[in-house]
């Protein structure tokens, strides 16, 4: 498994655990109220589990498992995939920071733009890898 896949997948495991713990606290809060501001964690729970867990895990596994380029059996430009990992995780962090700490700054806009950049790079890297070796 290549290094960028390992980073994406391990980061997705981290997001899964933190997202699940927040979800568990929200569920417990329904029975035993924990804090009046508890529900403000709902967007963080969703961000961590949709983008951090499901999307990140899928991207990591796809980079590893999709067919490589026929010409040189590589998976594409390593700098671009490293940038994908950084942009996606920065985007997730910015979205969470926006929800928790600095809602008046335009962090959510930057966060979603980073995530969109990561997805664009991901598509560019994988477009020509969606092939069949049979004629």
């Amino acid at each position: 498994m290549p290094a960028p896949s390992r980073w994406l997948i391990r980061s997705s495991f981290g997001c899964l655990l933190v997202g699940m713990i927040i979800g568990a606290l929200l569920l417990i809060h329904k029975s035993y109220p924990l804090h009046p501001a508890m529900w403000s964690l709902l967007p963080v729970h969703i961000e961590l589990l949709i983008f951090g867990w499901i999307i990140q895990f899928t991207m990591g596994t796809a980079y590893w498992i999709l067919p490589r380029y026929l010409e040189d059996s590589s998976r594409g430009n390593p700098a671009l995939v490293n940038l994908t990992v950084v942009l996606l995780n920065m985007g997730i962090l910015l979205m969470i920071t926006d929800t928790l700490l600095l809602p008046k700054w335009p962090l959510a806009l930057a966060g979603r733009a980073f995530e969109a950049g990561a997805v664009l790079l991901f598509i560019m890297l994988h477009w020509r890898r969606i092939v069949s070796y049979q004629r």
Partner: protein
Amino acid sequence: MPHVARTFIKTGFVFFMVALILGVALEIESLPLPRLMPLFWHALMVGWITQIIFGVSLWMFPGRTREEGFKAQIWAWLTYIFLNTGLVLRFIAEPMLLYSTLTIWDILVVGSAVLQVSGGVTYVIEMWPRVQSKKQRMRKRKQKRNR
């Protein structure tokens, strides 16, 4: 495909269907079914998508043991038991919070939360060492053979 992966995927199919039935019920305005929305989303995202990711990754990722059975694949089976018991408990207890003041429903909701997180933890315990490079995999295989 190992037994535990098949069980995850088939249970995922059941939750997929349950989610869509809940989705239909949500659209019928005359049905008096409150608190269905979180159940619909969790049946879909945890019961179906997360469960199928767990099942397929336990099967496809390198370094799995070929030996079948609960003891040989303890972390995977514990993940299955924790996640699904937690989900089923939630589906029973959460709507009951609205109709009953009995403490048992509150306790079951807490139990469901703890079980689902435990499922996440046991999954990561199983999978973390299996996220490895080709070199690391070869080294591990060599060490196993030399034992």
